[in-house]
């Protein structure tokens, strides 16, 4: 039997230069345009030259037929380390993990992690159609409800199993909207009340309109390097404490009621040397409120089945006792394809760097960001999480 070993610690690995290219609902620009703008903003914010970037990690649903290789020539990059990560909602955590080990091993010094997606009027439907082989064979032909229908099946079963009400899920969406109203770049700009949430039109029962993210175009990015590099550049940076990722966990569960986090959560906190209670900001992957609730359980804030209680007992807004998805999350900012995976992490980075502006949580030093995604068939297969700390901690 092969012995499972613990992950080696990160040693002086930092993240810097959180970049968001403000989202738009529809854009005629291509994914390459959005990714190019994000890299330009990285360089500007970090005060480096393009040639200083010697590692690149990109994620995009819509940059086909390009891969990362084509982008190096497109953007005039000469890198010695390159990765293309097509892991959907887990892409940001995965990119961070790859880049961290690359700079730790001196395979690269400065890795640019970027995600960006176009949103043409028809691109969302095309993405749904061509999502995966199992999806194409055995999901999409059943009403073509896309992710909404897949998550609806999960949500309905979860709600029935654990006695979760729509109000419980609504509180997550309503709180995030409150946060988003402080984020000038959020696509959702009007307040959302619980009454409005409950009265929204059904999309794929029990998923209603405000349970869904709005597909849009946009890009997100950050840099990964060693702290000596950051210091030499005079760059404020956040220290990476621990990460996990997992695929196809709990395959024996007939329906998904938990994500892969639950397999790795003990090591996540042990490696970081923190407890869940120590976190100042939690940025979950919020493609649907039900997945957020599942993460509250699986990331160790409460036990399985107690997610609804946990939500009822906490204030999830910026000023609350459990600041969560403080920029508004994908539910209120928009989901810019693979950039949606980055949204929580990049905002969390701003939080611990103290540069979040109107959405800043007071004295935020320690943050957790998670990723989730890829409903290949009947469940989300990918999960990941990272804990990182600001310079003041």
């Amino acid at each position, binding site marked *: 039997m092969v012995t499972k070993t613990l992950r080696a610690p990160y040693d002086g690995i930092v993240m810097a230069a959180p970049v968001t290219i403000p989202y738009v609902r529809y854009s005629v620009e291509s994914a390459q345009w959005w990714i190019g703008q994000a890299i330009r903003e990285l360089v500007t914010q970090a005060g480096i030259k393009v040639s200083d970037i010697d590692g690149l990690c990109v994620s995009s649903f819509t940059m086909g037929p390009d891969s990362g290789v084509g982008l190096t020539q497109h953007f005039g990059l000469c890198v010695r380390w390159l990765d293309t990560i097509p892991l959907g909602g887990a892409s940001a955590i995965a990119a961070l993990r790859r880049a961290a080990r690359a700079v730790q091993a001196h395979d690269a010094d400065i890795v640019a992690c970027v995600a960006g997606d176009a949103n043409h009027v028809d691109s969302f439907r095309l993405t749904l159609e061509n999502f995966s082989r199992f999806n194409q064979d055995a999901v*999409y032909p059943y009403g073509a409800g896309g992710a909404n229908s897949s998550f609806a099946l999960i949500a*309905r079963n979860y709600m029935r199993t654990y006695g979760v009400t729509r109000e419980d899920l609504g509180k997550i969406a309503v709180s995030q909207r409150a946060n988003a109203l402080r984020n000038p770049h959020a696509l959702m700009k009007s307040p959302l009340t619980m009454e409005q949430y409950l009265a929204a039109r059904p999309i*794929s029962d029990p998923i209603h309109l405000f349970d869904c993210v709005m597909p849009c175009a946009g890009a997100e990015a950050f840099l990964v390097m060693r702290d000596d590099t950051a210091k030499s550049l005079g760059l404020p940076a956040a220290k990476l404490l621990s990460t996990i990722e997992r695929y196809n966990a709990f395959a024996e569960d007939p329906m998904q009621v938990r994500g892969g986090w639950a397999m790795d959560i003990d090591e996540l906190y042990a490696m970081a040397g923190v407890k869940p209670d120590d976190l100042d900001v939690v940025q979950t992957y919020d493609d649907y409120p039900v997945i957020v609730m599942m993460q509250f359980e699986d990331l160790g804030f409460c036990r399985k089945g107690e997610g609804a209680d946990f939500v009822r007992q906490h204030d999830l807004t910026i000023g609350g006792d459990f600041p969560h998805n403080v920029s508004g999350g994908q539910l209120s900012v928009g989901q810019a394809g693979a950039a949606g995976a980055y949204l929580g992490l990049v905002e969390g980075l701003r939080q611990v760097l103290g540069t979040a502006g109107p959405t800043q949580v007071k004295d935020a030093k320690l943050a957790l960001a998670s990723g989730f995604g890829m409903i290949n068939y009947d469940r989300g297969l990918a999960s990941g999480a990272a804990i990182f700390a600001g310079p003041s901690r």
Partner: protein
Amino acid sequence: MIEPIKPPGRKNPLLRTRLPTAPPRPRSRKSHGFTRAAAEGRFMLQCCEACGTFCYPAREACPSCLSSGLAFVDAPRRGTLLSETTARVPSDVYFRERAPWRAGLIKMDCGPIIIAHLHADCVETAAVLMSFQLDKSGQAVAFARPEGETPNMADDRQWRELTADPKFRRVLVTNGRSVVGQEAAMALKAAGAKTVFVGIAEPWRPFPGESALRGHEGIEIVALDAADEKSVNDLAADIGGKVDILVNTTEYVRAGGLLDRRGTSVMRDEIDQAYLGFVNLAQGFGPAMRMRGADGVNNAAAWVNVLSVYALANWPAFGAYSASQAACLSLSHCLRAELRPGGVKVVNLFTGPVDNEWFQTVPPPKVAPRAVASAIVSALKNGLEDVYVGDVAEEIRQRLAANPKALERELDR
């Protein structure tokens, strides 16, 4: 509880006829194992030859042991509906105009999880029976229905999208001179067809069974000689816009093969009647049917060919006839592809020798014309594509699958 569908009223001529759209079509090559199962009305799943694990969706390797030996085998149909959803704003045009659309996730008793279209009477946490059906793209989809019978079960809206039930539809049986044609007309009428048009070639020639056919309520005799282009076009001009199901019962059977026949005139007749007749019917009726694939409750739904099972393997005693049937079989695949954009099914019935005068000297078992007729109705009601009627046809199917060469040698007797 399903409300019975109502007989459709007359069409409003001021409204544009809804054009057919199709559900998503792309599939992996492997998943056409389900297409094959659905075509024959079987429920098959991949089962690992090494470890016995059933799996789904279609895979290239067993998720339990990574063996590539995943054979499609008949599988237990029972499962439990774990969760359901109703898609109300699908992104795809076909489903959007049919929304709300109900689908669910079923845990099969034999293991796999299957996402399926749901019969309206399926209940969460209760048992369901699974089948594979062909949708309007011609692709296999899983369909779950309650374990027991429920009232008006066949009238379920989503089920009707996958079938071609004759209820309230108008049917053309192309050849009412044959007993098969007459039985088919009666059976379709009994199955709820609004009108059954029955084609009679050379109406000046009387034929047995004529008076029963003429006196039958809802059966309308029309002049139709499928082998005559003009006759077909004249009839299509008359009724082409209201034929929802066309049942091609052309029958031209002559014994004999090649060497003991002199010349080509019998061959020509066989080709004229069976093959060119099919061509004429397709050209006459196909375009309107393809256009009317989504035209309400009584939309164009299916084209049925009654073929000999010897279309699949030549029987030298009826060798030239077998060849004419093989030509029709090949053509049916072309027709299937061309009618597909309309969502119109092409059903092939493969019969063994029918109990009629042309197979008089052939020993039993033979297929009763009535059995062919009920197989037609059943194929339409269940949305099948390939149907083997009678013991001989079923045996040929199995022997062909086992070893086509052995079948060829053994048919030469």
